């Protein structure tokens, strides 16, 4: 038994020695700095075929009509307050509560993304000195689901050439809003497929 172990051990030692020497050799010859590994991405050079159904159709069934929902909730609330079935919980109520939670979550996501978009645009918009004029310019943005700005159009110019120009420059600098990538498709379609940016100059000296 011991003999087997000893021979195994010698074999292991030889292996160990070999791997040592090899590793030392390979390290010195390759001279790759292992402190800061670099990340290499490989990209294939292929023509990107546009997905045929870019404008995906949202099933109308899934589309929650918020206005209607709020209305029904309100009327429901009034009925509950006046009626005797105040403590009665029925299934549609739970469903409504759930959809309410879902709605508030959706709203939160929309606000979050809107704030990011606002920040991004703010960081590239070089606002001209408009003295004491109050100016407003509205720009309609058309996004792809990938976040790419497909198209934009100044729908309500401020009529101040320099202000409008500064707005167009800012939007030209932003070609992507990757933030919408994480959104549910339905939310994207109803909120960010087309949205408006409203640029305002309060006329105050900042």
């Amino acid at each position, binding site marked *: 038994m011991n003999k087997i172990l000893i021979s195994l051990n010698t074999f292991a030692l030889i292996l160990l020695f070999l791997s040592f020497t090899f590793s030392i050799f390979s390290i010195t010859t390759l001279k790759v700095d292992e402190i800061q590994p670099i990340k290499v991405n490989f990209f294939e050079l292929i023509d990107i075929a546009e997905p045929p159904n870019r404008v995906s159709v949202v099933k109308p069934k899934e*589309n*929650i*009509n*918020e*206005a209607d929902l709020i209305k029904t909730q309100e009327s429901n609330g009034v009925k509950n307050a006046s009626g005797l079935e105040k403590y009665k919980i029925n299934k549609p109520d739970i469903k409504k509560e759930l959809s309410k939670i879902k709605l508030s979550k*959706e*709203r939160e996501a*929309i*606000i979050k993304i*809107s*704030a990011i*978009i*606002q920040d991004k*645009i*703010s*960081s*590239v*918009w*070089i*606002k*001209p*000195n408009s*003295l*004491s004029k109050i100016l407003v310019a*509205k720009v*309609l943005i058309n996004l792809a689901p990938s976040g790419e700005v497909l198209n934009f159009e100044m729908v309500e110019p401020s009529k*101040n*050439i*320099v*202000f409008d*120009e500064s707005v*167009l*420059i800012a939007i*030209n*600098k932003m070609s992507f809003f990757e933030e919408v990538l994480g959104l549910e498709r339905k939310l994207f379609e*109803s*909120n*960010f497929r*087309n*949205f*408006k*940016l*409203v*640029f*305002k100059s*309060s*006329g*105050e*000296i*900042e």
Partner: protein
Amino acid sequence: MRSFILILLSSNMFSLLEIEIIKGSDNLSKVAFVPFGIEENLDENYGLQISTQIEKNMLLFGEFENLDKAEMLSFPSSEEDFYYRDWKIMGVDYSVIGKINSINMLGNLNISYSLFNINRRIKILEGEIIGRENNIEGIAKIISNRIYEKITGLKGIFDTKLAYIVNSDAETFQMCISDIDGKNEQILFTSAAPIMSPDWSPDRKKIAYVSFENGLAEIFIQDLASGERESIQALGMTNSAPVWSPDGKSLALVVSFSGNPDIFSYSINNKRLVRLTNHYGIDTEPSWSPDSKKIIFTSDRSGSPQLYEINTQSKRKKRLTRDGNYNARGRYFPDGKSIFFVHGNDGNFQIATKKLSSRFIETLTSTSLDESPTISPNGNIIIYATKDGSKGYLGGITLDGKSRFSLPVKNGSVREPAWSP
């Protein structure tokens, strides 16, 4: 300022999500001034000189950032060699290129130039100019003005001048004018007695100022071309703080009969003095509104110096400031809708602005002994006098607060700047 308002209108078929953008970036527009090209058999220096001069002008007030010449990827001189990508990749917002096409026997250079908006990928300005080879500075100023106007929408100010008083020692006072970049300084008048309150005539041909050379405060009007000085023989004991009306026909000034200063309007042609205020308090430092209809002035009638406005026709007065116990040296913005003045607070004197329609004042500067603010004709920059120890120098600030700068130091204290129209 950081208040973000989000208007969210979702799930309704007809209303789109609207995101409101109020705050702009703190960054400045980046401009690349490409050395101008030259035709063969011309002196290479001209091209570089012109572009460097334009660059210097444009960077004078810190309103822009530049791309250093050494950082440029290419040096185009005509539209054919200009590629937007070369500049976009460097984060440039605007590029200025140009070329010296020819020089004739009289030494006149023919220069063409263009300005490109890199983000929008369009040429926004193209021009040609003929000027003498020994006046490269002048040519550069004209080109700078046009570029500045195109980018900011404001009037170019590189051909304006500055008047100021240099006090090199206790007994030497100099009335000086210079180009806005500090070059071509001219001493108009030297005196052993104090000189004060210079002001430009609207046609830039004359300067009015107060001199104590005859023992009392006396107003002089000096013609810049001839150097001739003319004293205004007003009736009072002392006459001070002359300010030209924007139409150039009259001066607003302070006349003191028996020690009580009041505001008067003095018509230059028929030398008539019209009393505007009559109060036992001190009324001083008048200044005209851009439409010549109103005059702003400082008065201590309420117990502390505050700003008032008087209609020169109806003589109706209105108090303009109520914050703090020191608001003086008021001036109107070129659009007449706001004023700027010196606001005192706990022994700190700073330049502040106020919209006439609002109750609030905003302080612009952060130094503590600021005085005599003067505004650029385009209403975008204020230059003021301030102190570093006992030595006075001129500081400046753009109204968006993005840039603060100080003008080159002179040997001597510099006070009371006045920006030419």
